[in-house]
C-alpha cells in the first residue's frame, strides 16, 4: 500500500475545529451538495468517511494527472498525429474535472489518517476556491471542444488549449495546495 495510514497532526493543528466546521458548511452549501454522494460506502472495512473522501479526491487527481500526461505526449511530443486518442482523452479529462465538484465536500477536509496536500485555504476561502474549480472545468471543457473530431483544430490550437488547462492546474496548486 502506497497510501499509508499515518496520523497527520499538522493538518489537524492548522484548522481549528470551529473554523473547519464553518468553512465546511459554507463549502458544502455554496459549492455542491456532495456529502450525500460520498458518505454511503458501507463495505469499506475500517475506513472513516473522512478517509474515503480523501481517497476519492486523490483518485480524481490521479486520473487527471494521467490524462494530462497522455495529452502532453500526444499533442506536444507527437505533434497531434493521433487526433482520435486526443479527442477521447480530452473528453475524459473534461468529465473527470467535473468530479472535482465532489472532491472537497464536508468530510474531505478532515482525512487525518491519510496524508493530504490539500491546503487549509480551500476551506478558508471557499469563494476563491470555487473560482479555481470553475477555471479548471472551463479550461477542460474548452480543450474537449477544440479536441473534438468535428472541430478540425490544428496542433497549435490543441497546444494552446492544453496550456490553458495547465495554467488552471498551476494556479490552483499555488493557492490551494500545500507543498
Amino acid at each position, binding site marked *: 500500500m*502506497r497510501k499509508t495510514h499515518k496520523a497527520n497532526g499538522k493538518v489537524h493543528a492548522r484548522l481549528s475545529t470551529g473554523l473547519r466546521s464553518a468553512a465546511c458548511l459554507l463549502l458544502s452549501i455554496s459549492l455542491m451538495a456532495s456529502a*450525500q*454522494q*460520498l458518505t*454511503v*460506502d*458501507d463495505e*469499506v472495512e475500517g475506513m472513516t468517511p473522512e478517509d*474515503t473522501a480523501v*481517497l*476519492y479526491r*486523490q*483518485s*480524481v487527481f*490521479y*486520473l487527471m*494527472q*494521467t490524462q494530462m*500526461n497522455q495529452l502532453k505526449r500526444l499533442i506536444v511530443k507527437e505533434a497531434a498525429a493521433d487526433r482520435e486518442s486526443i479527442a*477521447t482523452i480530452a473528453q*475524459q479529462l473534461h*468529465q*473527470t474535472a467535473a*468530479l472535482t465538484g*465532489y472532491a472537497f465536500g464536508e468530510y474531505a477536509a478532515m482525512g487525518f489518517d491519510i496524508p493530504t496536500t490539500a491546503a487549509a485555504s480551500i476551506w478558508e476561502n471557499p469563494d476563491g476556491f470555487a473560482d479555481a474549480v470553475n477555471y479548471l472545468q472551463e479550461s477542460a471543457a474548452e480543450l474537449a471542444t477544440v479536441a473534438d473530431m468535428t472541430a478540425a483544430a490544428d496542433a497549435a490550437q490543441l497546444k494552446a488549449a492544453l496550456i490553458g488547462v495547465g495554467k488552471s492546474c498551476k494556479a490552483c*496548486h499555488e493557492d490551494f495546495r500545500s*507543498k
Partner: protein
Amino acid sequence: MMKRARVVGAALMGAALLTASGVSLAQRMSPADQAIEYRQSGFKLLKNHFGPMRAMIKGKADFDAAVFAENAKTVSMLAALIAAKGFPEVSETGDELTTKALPDIWLDTEGFAEVAQAFLTNSQALAETAATATDLESVKPAFMAVAKTCKGCHDDYRE
C-alpha cells in the same frame, strides 16, 4: 567522510530539484504501477458513486431521483474511462503496488472484452433510465443488471 557528505549533499540537492520542478508521483512510479494506480483510482471512484445508488436500492437511504441520476451518469462515464485505459497488459503485475486483477484478463481477452462491453452497455442503460425516473421501482431492474455485471466480472477476473 568528505565523500559521504558530498553524496548526501547531492542527494539532497536532487530531492530539492525534484520538488522545485514539481515532478509528480506518477513520474517516479514504474509504468506497471502507474497503470495499476490509474485502474484502482477509476474503480475507487466507481465504488463511491455506486454506493449511494445501492443504499437507495437496499432501502438504507431515501430515494432521491436527482442524486440517483447523477451517480448513474458518473458510473457510466467511469465505466467508459476504465474500459478504455484500465487494463493495459503492463498492469498485470505491479512493482510496488499489488493488484487483484487476475491473469485471465489478458489470457481470455475475448471473454473479458465481453464482460467489459456488458458493463458499458448496462451502465449506459442505467444512466438513461435514471435520467427520467421518478421512483425507485423504475430504476431497480437497470441497477440490478449493472450490479450483476460487476459481480460476474469480479467472480471470473478478480482475486
